[in-house]
């Protein structure tokens, strides 16, 4: 089967100015990300803030243009954003955001918002269609007359989903779709997403920092660190036996009852994309780094078992080191 979505070598740079008088600094939000998503499957993207997972989501939707690399959707290169062709394609791919209230127009009723994509793409709508769509996301047809602030967080996210599904998309990019919701509601929304996928065969790019949620939702999972994918594979393989030291730390950081064994606590802060370390970007925090890690960027390539990993140590190219001494705090410009 051919891939629905293919991204190759995506690079995205921003210029950032520090303070009012600062010189602009180049920030590499994405530094060569490639991914493939098949019809009806889910790819989970995990990582911490600033790792580039949301940027990846925006690039594959064409909301931003990559500085390097390319995105193909249904074997066609993504047209330039804003063109008529892109808008037509956009009905096939939709986005679901973290904050459902922010994603909705407070002055429009739920029914009007759900019908909006139809209107934009020039189709006729009937109240029955709206009702059917609302029912398919677990809302009642009478919710159509409500306004966003009258719904609970979970209901709002359902309404956002209904709107996204109106154009019957082939791809849903879900950027932290459950992290603003309460625990008991998160499960409802995850179940709903799975049901939607089973019924409609929609592919999901599921972006989250929550490894439990990613395992629940994904067929494949990619772990990102500072603009690169550092490990990719089957969820259970990656989560039960992570190969990359960062993935290991991430898995070990999941809080859970009855912890046995010690958690790997990473030193230092999440890295700053404006001051990317040389070599492997993770090396200043890595417990097994050695000199080569600071010099040479490891390539994401398959191991013998087929898992993709970007780590010199995990590939057995060098023996595990014992971490590198923390660099002296550089004075930023």
């Amino acid at each position, binding site marked *: 089967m051919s891939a629905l979505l293919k991204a190759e070598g995506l690079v995205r740079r921003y210029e950032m100015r520090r303070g009012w008088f600062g010189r602009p600094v180049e920030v590499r939000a994405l530094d060569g990300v490639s991914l493939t998503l098949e019809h009806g499957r889910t790819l989970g993207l995990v990582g911490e803030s600033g790792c580039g997972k949301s940027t990846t989501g925006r690039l594959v939707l064409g909301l931003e243009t990559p500085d390097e690399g390319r995105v193909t959707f249904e074997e066609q290169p993504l047209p330039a954003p804003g063109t008529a062709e892109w808008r037509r394609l956009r009905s096939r791919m939709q986005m679901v955001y973290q904050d459902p209230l922010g994603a909705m127009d407070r002055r429009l009723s739920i029914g009007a918002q759900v019908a909006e994509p139809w209107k934009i793409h020039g189709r006729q709508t009937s109240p029955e269609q709206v009702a059917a769509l609302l029912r398919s996301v677990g809302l009642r047809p009478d919710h159509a007359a409500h306004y966003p602030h009258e719904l609970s967080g979970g209901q709002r996210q359902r309404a956002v989903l209904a709107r996204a599904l109106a154009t019957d998309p082939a791809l849903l990019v879900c950027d932290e779709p459950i992290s603003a919701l309460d625990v*008991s509601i998160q499960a409802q929304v995850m179940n709903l997403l799975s049901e939607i996928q089973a019924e409609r065969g929609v592919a999901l790019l599921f972006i989250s920092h929550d490894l439990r949620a990613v395992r629940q939702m994904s067929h494949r999972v990619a772990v990102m660190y500072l603009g690169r994918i550092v490990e990719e594979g089957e969820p259970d393989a990656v989560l039960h036996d992570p190969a990359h030291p960062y993935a290991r730390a991430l898995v070990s950081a999941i809080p859970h009852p009855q912890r046995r064994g010690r958690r790997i606590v990473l030193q230092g802060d999440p890295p700053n994309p404006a001051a990317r370390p040389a070599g492997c970007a993770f090396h200043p925090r890595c417990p097994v780094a050695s000199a080569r890690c600071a010099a040479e960027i490891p390539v994401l390539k398959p191991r013998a078992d087929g898992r993709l990993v970007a780590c010199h140590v995990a590939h057995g190219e060098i023996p595990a080191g014992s971490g590198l001494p923390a660099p002296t705090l550089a004075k930023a410009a």
Partner: protein
Amino acid sequence: MVEPLVAIRGLSVSFDGLPALRGVDLTVGRGEAVALVGESGCGKSVTWLAALGLLPAKARVSGSVTLEGTELIGAPPAVLDRVRGGRIAMIFQDPASSLNPVHRIGRQIAEALRLHRGLDGRAAREEARRLLDQVGMPDARRRLDAFPHELSGGQNQRVMIAMALAGRPEMLVADEPTTALDVTIQAQILELLAEIRRDTGMALVLVSHDLGVVAETCERVCVMYAGRIVEETAADKLFTGPAHPYAQGLLAALPPMTGPRRPLAAIPGGVPEPWAMPRGCAFAPRCPRRAEACEAAPPPLAEVAPAHRAACLYPGAAAVVSPVPAMVPA
């Protein structure tokens, strides 16, 4: 029984006539680590903001909170000012906005040192540096002159903890201390809190929505729902044998880390709104074991086993799949 450090009795809070807290009873012993878990709006933060008199003026607070016999509800400002930071310290969810953006962090820590320990000038600065060292702030001496916006979220939370430690409190209330932080930073902060507790013997109250965070950090857990404590028990007991259907539902809704992936056992419906609170048990509309009696009056928090209380007429050990993930070989 030894007298508890803090005893909360029948604490109720309402805002503009709408109930936020509906009669909470809770004690915290010296050096104990207690967690309050629940979803947003359940009253877990309000409980402690009310106890310390930190709620806005429009809040109507009734009931009693005593700190070793001293009543805090309605206490004069002078009494509260000495308790806050001096005997009970509190840290908050969003460390970046919880620090004053226009003051250097050294000054903000020194302020607590002056208030509670009478330190000034050089002595305060030296002690502030020591505190920053204690909370694991790299390059502490230079950070004294930093502003909050120059530090990361994790570092700012360390500053908040250092500031909380400045008054040598007997208890630290940590209100969602890691929610705004990344996973690996959350691990650092939890580790730090555990270490400080070991070193100082301070009591810890952890307010959190994250059952995993709570389980690792605390000995005793109180589960809150719609302004009430619905279950109170030892942490390990809660995860192996919860009695209240809400606690059972929360655990079951957590995606497992092992085993086949099947639909999650989500709790249906949502939390009742404060203006539409059910007359009986607030959880009844979502409860699989709901019976007629549940809708008559809110069930009292009653003992279901030694040191295990639940506010449910039909408490039971429902089959809960223990959400224990496989371990990473460490």
